[in-house]
Each structure stands twice: as C-alpha cells, then as structure tokens.
C-alpha cells in the first residue's frame, strides 16, 4: 500500500498549436512519480515542470477526474484511455506502468473530431447526433406519475446499461473507420427498450443515423474495437439493436 519507490517516465506527447498546425511528437521525462499518481496527475507534474521552465504546458481535456464526465480523451500507447478495462484516463493509475517506461500520448484521431490544441479535440459532432433525436419529446410538466407506466426490471436494467455511456468518444477513436455506432447505438437502444421512447422510435433512429453520416463518422465493420475502448463497457449488442431499429423504421 505505502510504497515509497518512485518512477521516472519517458513521454512522447503529441503537440499541436491549433487546428491548422501540422503538429509533431515531443519527448519529455518526468521524475518522482509514485504508484498512487493518477495518469493525469503525472501529466500535472510534467506541466508544472514545463511552466517553471517557461514553456507551454501540454493542453489536455479533463474535469471531474472521477471517470464520469467524459471530458478526458487521450490515446495512450495506441489505445484510447490506455487500455485498462472499463477505465477512463483520469482513473488510470501509474501503478499500471513501470520505472523507465516510454509512454506515447496522442489525441483522439477521427475525421469528425478536429484537433483544438495538443491532446484536445472538438467533439461537438456527438452533441449533433443527440440533437437529431436522442430524447423523448416530453414537455416540462404535464407528464404522468412515474409509476403510471410500469417498466419491467429487465427493460429498465437494459436501458441503464446503454445509458451509462459518458460520451467521451473513445469508441470513435478506437474504431478503424472512425464510426460513432456504439455511441449512437447506445442512445437509440436506451429509448428503444423503454415504453417512453417507443412513440418516436422510427424518426429517432432515422434522424440520428443521418446525423452520424452528416458529421463525417464512418460505418461499422464489426471490429469490436469500440467495445474494447469503452470505459463504461457499453456492449456492441446495442449496435445490432440500432441496426434492427433502423431496418424496422424503413417499413
């Protein structure tokens, strides 16, 4: 538990001034890292060093640092969020690495996610998909009692499994086609299994799939890389469900 050994880590980090810059990798060394440092706290140490040396710190998105806001977004050694099962970058800890390791850090790379700076990308495309239909069109007020429509437990549980998505975009970054099928499939499925979502099921799936295409996301070719990258373990069965819903909507 209390291990006072510290590590020295070599970092190869993608640096890019803005969307128009070509960008390149830079090498850094950070010292004094313990097994209890989170990955982002390790980057904090790097940034403090850089600031003190009068250099620009590495820009990276982060906020809640407890694995739920979906803000953090880094490809670590080729894997979105670093490859630990069901873990966001902010929940990844340095005990998973070793003294002297070299770690490559890159931003999400996908046509639909332009780079803002260094490791920060623009994920507005995911919002656009939700805006296309990721809701029930209920009004504020004037809705029935919460127990008026019973929802069988298995349906509620399945909706919750799908709804756990944090919208980080790791599925897109992990997909060789830059597809947002897991993200979109999860939202389509959440509503598809709930009675509240049934009324608009057809238009929802049609419009969300269209928005996905319009935003420049690719298509699914069953690599399952999205599921491997997903920090919430969203299952690819929801992509199958979306496909089924999409087909149903055509008739």
């Amino acid at each position: 538990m209390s291990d006072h050994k510290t590590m020295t880590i070599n970092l190869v980090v993608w640096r890019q001034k803005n969307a128009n810059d070509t960008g390149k990798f830079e090498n850094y060394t950070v010292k004094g890292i313990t097994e209890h440092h989170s990955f982002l706290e390790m980057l904090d140490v790097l940034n403090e060093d850089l600031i003190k040396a009068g250099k620009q710190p590495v820009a990276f998105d982060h906020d809640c640092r407890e694995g739920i806001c979906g803000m953090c977004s880094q490809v670590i050694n080729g894997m979105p969020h670093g490859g630990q099962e069901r873990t966001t970058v902010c929940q990844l800890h340095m005990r998973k690495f070793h003294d002297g390791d070299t770690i490559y850090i890159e931003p999400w790379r996908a046509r639909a996610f332009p780079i803002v700076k260094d490791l920060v990308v623009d994920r507005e495309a995911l919002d656009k998909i939700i805006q296309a239909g990721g809701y029930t069109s209920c009004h504020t007020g004037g809705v029935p009692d919460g127990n008026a429509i019973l929802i069988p437990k298995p349906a509620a549980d399945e909706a919750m499994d799908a709804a756990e998505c944090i919208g980080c975009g790791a599925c897109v970054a992990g997909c060789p086609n830059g597809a947002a099928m897991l993200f979109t499939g999860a939202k389509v499925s959440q509503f598809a299994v709930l009675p509240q979502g049934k009324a608009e099921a057809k238009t929802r799936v049609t419009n969300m799939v269209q928005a996905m295409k319009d935003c420049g996301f690719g298509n699914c070719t069953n690599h399952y890389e999205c599921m491997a990258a997903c920090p919430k373990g969203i299952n690819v069965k929801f992509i199958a469900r979306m496909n089924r819903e999409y087909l149903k909507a055509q008739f």
Partner: protein
Amino acid sequence: MILDGKCPTGPIQQSWDKHRFDLKLVNPANKRKYNVIVVGTGLAGGAAAASLGELGYNVQAFCYQDSPRRAHSIAAQGGINAAKAYPNDGDSIYRLFYDTIKGGDFRAREADVWRLAQVSNNIIDQCVAQGVPFARDYAGYLDNRSFGGAQVSRTFYARGQTGQQLLLGAYSALSRQIKLGTVKMYARREMLDLVVVDGVARGITVRNLVTGELESYAADAVCLATGGYVNVFYLSTNAMGCSVTAKWAAHKKGAYFANPCYTQIHPTCIPQAGDYQSKLTLMSESLRNDGRCWVPKKKEDCGKHPNDVAEEDRDYYLERKYPSFGNLAPRDIASRAAKEQCDDARGVGPGGRGVYLDFATSIKRVGADTIKERYGNLFEMYEKITDEDGYKRPMRMYPAPHYSMGGLWVDYNLMSNIPGLFVLGEANFSVHGANRLGASALMQGLADGYFVIPYTIGGYLAGVKPVGTSTDAAEFKQSKEEVNGNVSKLLGINGKKTVSEFMRELGGLMWENCGMARSNESLNINLKKIPALREEFWQNVKVTGTGAEFNQDLENAGRTADFLEFAELMCRDALHREESCGGHFRTEHQYDDGEAMRDDSNFCYAGAWEFKGMNNEPELHKEPLKFENVHLAVRSYK
C-alpha cells in the same frame, strides 16, 4: 439593511400555488420577444435553458466544458429525494420539508423549502418521461433507498450514477430545444463578468476558451447556474473547472453573497494519498445503507489489518453515538464524528486520517452479489484509486469538501438583489441552510430549473420591456476592457511560482483554519495570511502563453485570483457567525458532548454580504429567518 425574501404569506401548504397564481404572465406571442441568458448547464442550468426555450423565450446557454452534458452534476452518485411515499413508510411533503429544515440546522427559509418538497414529486415524473432509467423492482415499480438524515426511504436512484442520468435527461431536453432553435448553445465559454446597465442585469462578458476572444452577450435577464465554490479548499470532490468566478463577478457587480461559511464536508471520501493529489473522490452516502463506520477501540490496533481487529475491539462510533439514525446520521454530524475519532489517534491508514466503512455484515446478510448490484461501480472506482478490494477488506474513508450551501442571495423568486439576475441550484443559498442532506442537491437543481424559474422569470419579464440583444451600451465595452486588463495583468507578471502552487497554499490555509472546525484564532490567522498570499500572487505568479489562444494555465490563474479574494469573505463570514450550525462548526460554541451549539437569539438570519471594493470591509445585510411551521429546536439524531 434588513433584506426581504418576499416570501408569500398565509398557510405554507398553499404558498407556492397562491404565489404562482399571483405571478404575472407573459403571453405566448410575447415570450419570443424576450431573451434570457443561462450560464452553466448542470441540472439547474440545463433544465432551466430547456424549459425556458420550450416556453418560447430566446435562450442563450453557456458552459465552460466542451459539451453541456459534462457539467459536474454528472458526478452525483447516490440519488434524488422525492416525497412520493411509494414505500408506504410514512413519508409526505410535510416530512420532506421538515427533514430538510432540520437537516439544514434551521438556517433556511421555510417557504423555499416547502416549495422544494412540493415539486420534488414532479421531478421524478418528469425524469421518468424523459427516459431516465431509474432502478425498478421486479414488478416494474420505481425502487427507493435510504439516505442520511431521514427515517424513510425516499431516494430514487439509477445505480450509482443518478446525477449522470438526471443530467443526461436535462441535456436531452436541452438538445431538443437546440435543434428546435429556441436555445443557442455556446460551449467552451467562461463567464468572467456580469454587465449591469442602469442597475439591471443586462448581459455577460465571456472568454471563448478556444480562441481566447472576449465576447459580449446581452439579454433581458441573466440566470446564473454555475455551481458551488468548495474548490476554494483546492482538494475537494468538485471537478477541476468548478470555481467561484462567475458568482464572484456578479458579487463584485453588486449581488449579495449569502452565508459563504456554510460549506459541506462529506464524510465518505477516499483519503488523500499524497501531496501531488489533484482531487478527492467521493463514495456515495448510499453506501452507508449497508456499510458500517468503525475505528479500532484501541490505539495499538490502528496499524493492524482491519480483518484482524476482533469484533469486540471495534468502535462503531456512529451507531454508538446516534443509535436512532446510526450510520445514516447527516453528513455534517458523520464528518465531525470521523474527525473526532482521528483526533483521538484512532484513525487508520496514512497519517491516521481515515475510518473504515465495512460491508462484511451486509455481505453476510444479503450476499456479495446483492451488494455488487447495489454499488458495483463504486467498489470498482474504489479499487482503481486505492488498489484495494472493498468486498474483502473495509474501505478507508475520510471527510472532504463537497458542496457549498452558501451562495448568492436570492429572494423567493430566485432573483438576486440585482433586478434581472437570477441564481439557480448550488450557486444560490436558498434551501439547504447550514447543512445539505444527501440526495437533495439533485432535487434542488432540477426543482429550480424545471419548476421554479419558468414561473418566476415570467413574473419579472412581464414587468419589463424587451430590450433586444444589442451590446452597444457603454457598460459592455467597459466590462470587456476590465476583463481584458485583468488577463493582460496576469500574463505580464512572469513571476516564479505556478498557479497551482498558490492554489494549493490557499487550499491548505482554508482546510486548516476554515474547514471542519473553525475558531476565532484560526480565522484570524487566515484573515492575515490570505491577503498576503493574494498580494504575493499578483507579484509572483507565472502564467504561460498568451490571451489569444486556448490557454488552460490562464484559465486556472483567473479562477485562483478569484478564490484568493473570495476566501477572505468566507473566513470573515465564519468569524462573524459566533455560533455553530450545520457545516459551520465554531470550536468555541459546542455542548459538552461536542454537538453544535446554535444561537437562535442572535444568529437566526441569513447573512448576505455586499461588496464595497477590495480594500474596504464588506457590509453585512441580514434576512431574519422566521419559523412558523417548524419548531426551532436543538437538532438531535440520537
């Protein structure tokens, strides 16, 4: 000055209904002539923007994150209260009202709390209609669990991610309005100033965090839903970007700041592991449904593996001290009890700052699978951070700053003392008094956003002429120049210490001297040290880069500069309040058994501070609190 909360009079049961009827209305065709700015897209802001857009107002919504879905409401784990009384266990609107008033240690307004309890039931219905997957039983009915400070089960939940699911519900409603064109969304914008024209809130100045450009936005009313300020302690359960900045900007433009010393220290957080640490992680209060808090009875047992400490050598201190509420004692009380054990040198883990939260009894009773189903994601999170298995050995916990009950002063209509400036959710001071009960923050955020502001803002707008969105007024230009001057100043210092070094130092001072226990002496230390630290900051901080680019160092510098000013007000408020109540514990004011000693004859009021310039003392205004429906009593959970 004596402040008037403009609460409705007459029987409290009819107060909100009567008030709603008395409020003036804006007719549907006129609504589109009015513009409303909403800052923050958490539960309060997201719900408000969506509901106001749906009513027909033109809404401009702002958040500092890259998407409105990421606001920190998302991190709330355990649940949301409502007085549905589905379990047939004696709950009612009156009981929720009573529990909340008592839980807040009799320092909240009765009328506001009544309204909150009344609309709590609408919130659950609304969320279900949105497709929020609340937990259900096998018959398909909504399930409930228990939370601290209540003897009924009234908490609705969605696994350990209730805040996330409720926020995604509000975000989906907001997304729908964005698509319909009633809400224009501005992400990655940070509000740095409030623009007041002729004494009325007319707009905001924001920094575009991508380009660095300063932008002005104008409207007929401004709603702040910018959350709390406990990052003033540096280490807290808040997100890294949570700050006092927007509220402080409004305060400096004239909005009163009420009860800043009321901060909540949550009893069950993962203890700090090292100096490098950037934040603390909370473990939901719901865990105390099945987890039992204990420390060793004997000091020499503290170093042992917890499973090797014999049952009779364990002190289940909450069950011992508060037999009727046991492990579900309210947060302020549970936190102080944990501190008490650690101060008695019976704490466990690094530095002896920790207590055990043990699930062994419950696992024996209901099985590990049931515990896993209830809290699986929390156990996973605990293991990721600590590398320990909570199913096999008790979790280690220590209190950490979590929530601010204080905030900008608002009247019953959620309007601040600046006409046209409304404040929602955690950013205001209105319903939690001196301590917030678990599962009540989500309730308040959504109550304000869905069911209060849509009515009360109409009452205000019906009385003013729409002014459009032009930012030509001199005040907009002046505000931009001020903000720009501040940015240039920060970038020009080029000192030797980093922003986070200052923030850590400030956080340390606040935790040490204005944290779980405060005294005349400790607060006076801070009132000397904070201005000195602030002075040093403005001479010796190092901020890299320029203002005309994406610059997180600059963002943090601005937030830290505001915390350095706000912290002083917080200590001043804590010093003036010569009593203990809820989360505000003055060591001079306690009973023999260590419980908080209120002074109702001198401090039964909300204290709202007016900014008088950085070099002048702020002026205190009082709003007396009247208790006509709940009897003022010593708060006991024994």
